[in-house]
């Protein structure tokens, strides 16, 4: 059994406030989980917890080492002196690796090609639209060759064409055994992906 994520009895707090309460979740290779819920229900908190950005107050987390996280795009993400290629390349960095290899560069080129942003590779990120920057973040996640991909509202602000490109890429990843967790608000995202489940978060707990 190819388990990519195993979260057991996870509790995440902000101070005294319990945001995620005794949540357990298993995700297998090639499986896609959509996480839905109203604003403030804890979808992003759960994703950040799985990404290791928020500590679990209790519970256990086991996940693939090759994990990529695509956060929501914020205005501050654009305010940096870098071009698209430089940002995409950072997705290949790992704990014990200080320099980029030839393979990393090839992966970055492939990821940009898959997301149809190869023509933007030398563009400064401050000149990109929100949708373009989302695709850059996706390319960054792809070039790390993830076994587990966490996406926090990747479709927000995407036009139809970008949406189609994104789901095409995700289908390919699933076929190659990557497990995907996607936070989404859009019902239209939930249809048409094979081997997918929808979980809803409310009151800090998940309901399937």
């Amino acid at each position, binding site marked *: 059994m190819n388990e990519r994520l195993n979260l057991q009895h996870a509790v995440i707090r902000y101070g005294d406030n319990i945001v995620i309460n005794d949540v357990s979740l298993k995700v297998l290779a090639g499986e896609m989980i959509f996480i839905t819920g109203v604003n403030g229900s804890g979808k992003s908190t759960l994703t950040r917890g799985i*990404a*290791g*950005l928020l500590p679990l107050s209790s519970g256990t987390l086991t996940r693939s*080492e090759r*994990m*990529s*996280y695509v*956060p929501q795009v914020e205005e501050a*993400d654009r305010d*940096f*002196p*870098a*071009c698209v290629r*430089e*940002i995409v*390349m*950072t*997705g290949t*960095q*790992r*704990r014990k690796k*200080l*320099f*980029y290899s030839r393979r990393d560069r090839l992966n970055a080129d492939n990821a940009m090609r898959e997301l149809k942003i190869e023509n933007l590779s030398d563009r*400064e990120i401050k000149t990109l639209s929100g949708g373009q920057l989302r695709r850059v973040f996706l390319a960054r996640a792809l070039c*790390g060759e993830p076994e587990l991909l966490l996406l926090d509202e990747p479709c927000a602000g995407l036009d139809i064409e970008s949406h189609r490109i994104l789901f095409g890429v995700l289908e390919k990843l699933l076929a190659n055994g990557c497990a995907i967790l996607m936070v989404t608000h859009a019902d239209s995202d939930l249809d048409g992906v094979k081997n997918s489940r929808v979980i809803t978060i409310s009151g800090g707990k998940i309901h399937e």
Partner: protein
Amino acid sequence: MNEILELLSYPFVIRAIVAGSLISICASVLGVILVLKHYSLIGHGLSEIGFASLSIASALKVPAMMVSTPSVIAASFVIMFVSQRYKTAGDIAIAIASSAALALGIVISSLTGSSSNTGAYLFGSVLAVSEGDLIFAIILSLIVMSAFVVFYNRLFLMTYNEDYAHSLGINTTLYQLMISVLTALVVVSGMRITGTLLISGVIILPAVTAKSLASRFKTLVIISGVVSFAAFIAGLAVSFAFNIPAGAGVILSNAAILISAKFLAMMIKRK
């Protein structure tokens, strides 16, 4: 010309030029990270804590570096941690710590009768650069430059998005500590020349100048280093020519370059 050659014949002038140039370059490249991460006030906070530590060292009659190095490093850990964890509270913490440290330094200097040193601490002196300071500056600059070469990709990612670096399994605390320690060491060594009140300017101004001219991180680091070196030499020349404190000359040179760069950037944008 003869006057310049005569000045260069004094060992203390050579020491000041070499040590000051190296520290200015180190300060400015670290300043790029601090400016982009919105930690610009950290240098200011650390320098005033450095002033308090120099006053304590003078009162205890022990070597300044013995007190200021550990205390500024410790303060840099606390400030970075608070700034990172509590964001807005970080600015408030720096403002409180720096004004309290400045007041403490002045009180200690007054009570121990060492207030004659206060001016030298606050505004710096090129005469203060000893051979030991010069060696320290050379070693520090080698460490800073090596860190930028070896860890360039990491520093780029850490500066852009620390959370993302953390999600990749990178030990972000370790790199944060590295930046804190190097910044603290630059502050400690630089405040002897430019003074505690002005060292933060040497850290921040060249990076802000470079930010208005460069569109890539690497270029920004290089321009910041070049600007800082040029401003240091120009500032030192002005200080010798008009007999003013070196730190003030360096900061005014940096400010003049910053204004020129902003003007240039504005003109290029209009075209």
